């Protein structure tokens, strides 16, 4: 039996349906990401699991027990918010100890557990500070510590890194994943950033307009998107309609094709029927906009040496690995 099981969940807000029939299963100790554009329902789903938003129909089973009739206080779920939600009138230590206080844990045990979890997030020296004295990254680590100290059965993270700058985000990503593995904590992570989803998760649920469009591990979602939306959301797929695909591959194609930009090779040998329109340097990758046989393509080339740099207007030969051609709905 799955650790978490969402069955036929329905939710409507003020006349509009957010989702009408969501189903998913999560195993114990898994790190799962709900990925999707703004408004796809991922945050709402998370809040339903937490009990912060009511549900119109369906069940949410945690260890076999339906959470829907339970109040948030009793669910044993920890949650980290995008805005940290640290209590401004309490120190870091008091914030973290709050959940233990509500559980009526005695002072000694509480102190021990707080110190333990603060060293997990490397913030022992900040125990006496107030939230307004901390940086964004530090606040988020306190929020994480606060939700972990109560030993929740399930950890929810609602876009916790979106408000932080890039460097801190990368660092925290690793830290969260590491802690999660150490504790073996079942975790659901919500984000709209595909890079985050791909690097952190065991499994990803890709959502769009209230439906789970595709679920699977990072590799599967990246190399085998199931439809146009998935291909457009993850990676930088070249999406070609049948007519363009036929022109490019010079044989009749009857369905849409998605091609990953790194699956197209450029060289100066062979039929030079492609031309560089523009390029941009993305650090270790050069992204070219190419026109080949009347079709526009994006091609990513690893920036290994000067030989890989082609000026605008350069004529090139294209070669595409046939296994990299994906049919999409």
């Amino acid at each position, binding site marked *: 039996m799955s650790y978490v099981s969402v069955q036929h969940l329905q939710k409507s807000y003020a006349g509009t349906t957010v989702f009408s029939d969501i189903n998913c299963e999560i195993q114990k100790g898994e790190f799962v990401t709900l990925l999707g554009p703004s408004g796809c329902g991922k945050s709402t789903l998370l809040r339903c699991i*937490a*009990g*912060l938003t009511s549900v119109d129909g369906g069940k949410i089973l945690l260890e076999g027990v339906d959470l829907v009739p339970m*109040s*948030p*206080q009793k*669910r044993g*779920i*920890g*949650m980290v*918010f995008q*805005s940290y*939600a640290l*209590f*401004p*009138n*309490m120190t870091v230590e008091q914030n973290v100890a*709050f*959940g233990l206080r*509500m*559980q009526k844990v005695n002072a000694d045990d509480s102190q021990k557990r707080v110190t333990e979890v603060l060293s997990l997030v490397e913030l022992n020296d900040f125990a006496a500070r*107030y939230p*307004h*004295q901390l940086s964004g990254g530090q606040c988020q680590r306190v929020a994480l510590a*606060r*939700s972990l100290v*109560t030993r929740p059965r399930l950890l929810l993270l609602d876009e916790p890194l979106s408000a932080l700058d890039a460097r801190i985000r990368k660092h925290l990503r690793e830290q969260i994943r590491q802690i999660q593995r150490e504790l073996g904590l079942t975790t659901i992570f919500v984000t709209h950033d595909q890079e985050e989803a791909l690097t952190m998760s065991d499994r990803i649920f890709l959502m769009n307009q209230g439906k789970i469009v595709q679920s699977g591990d990072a590799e599967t979602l990246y190399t085998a998107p199931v439809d146009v939306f998935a291909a457009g959301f993850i990676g930088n797929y070249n999406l070609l309609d049948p007519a363009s695909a036929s022109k490019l591959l010079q044989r009749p194609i009857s369905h849409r094709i998605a091609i990953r930009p790194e699956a197209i090779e450029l060289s100066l040998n062979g039929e030079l029927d492609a031309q560089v329109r523009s390029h941009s340097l993305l650090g270790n990758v050069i992204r070219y906009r190419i026109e080949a046989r009347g079709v526009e393509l994006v091609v990513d080339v690893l920036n290994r040496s000067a030989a890989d740099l082609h000026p605008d207007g350069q004529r090139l030969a294209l070669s595409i690995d046939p296994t990299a051609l994906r049919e999409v709905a």
Partner: protein
Amino acid sequence: MNAMTRGKWLAALCLVPFVLFFIVFEIAPLVWVMINSLQSEEFGWGIANFTKIFKSKFYMQAIQYSLEISFWSSVFGIIISVLGAYSLRRVDSKLRNFVNAFANMTSNFAGVPLAFAFIILLGFNGSFTIMLKQAGIIQDFNLYSKTGVIILYTYFQIPLGVLLLYPAFDALREDWRESAELLGANSWQFWRHIGLPVLTPALLGTFVILLANALGAYATVYALTTGNFNVMPIRIAAMVSGDISLDPNLASALAVVLVALMTLVTIVHQLLLKRSYHVSR
């Protein structure tokens, strides 16, 4: 550069009429009051006026009544305002906007009209008095007593309190509530540990404003009792507007005491604020 500095001098000139009027109608009277509180007909310069006030049972009673009425009306006023403002935030927007606008409008009702309205309803022959007497809830209600005045004052504190506290709830973020819930806190625990502490600066600030508002109020109690109730503003006015005892210097001294009390309250408020935590802006 000359054109610029000339421009600035011209601009400064534009300020002169304003400054003039402000001095004439706001600063000068204040200064006069402060200076003349220390002048007495019999004793010349000195604190004679103040000693007279603090030795007189009559004036001390005025101060005491002022403080009592202001304190109680502000306490009741703020409790009702907090509950009202909080619930106001949680109802649908049509009802909210309507009641908000209505509260704004009724704040204009204060003063003489309010006193008259209360006399109609709660005076000796007021319909409310009769209703409550018939229901056996009260024996004998005197609107013109201290209790009656407190009720009246509480009434006009409410719109002001609601107006001031309504935006204060902006500081209370919804995700604090949600976080607390997930950590196991029920409603009462949330308010006790997080909600009320966070609101405290706003609550204190509003309380101080209500206190100052009540201390300086003149129109309502004057209209209610035709100037026969012993509170500081009435005493001050009586000593300068041709009633029995004309003594502008003594009036000035009492006025200084009134302003000093209001200042004291503000200082205490600032001190209390510093004690409580600080939320960074």
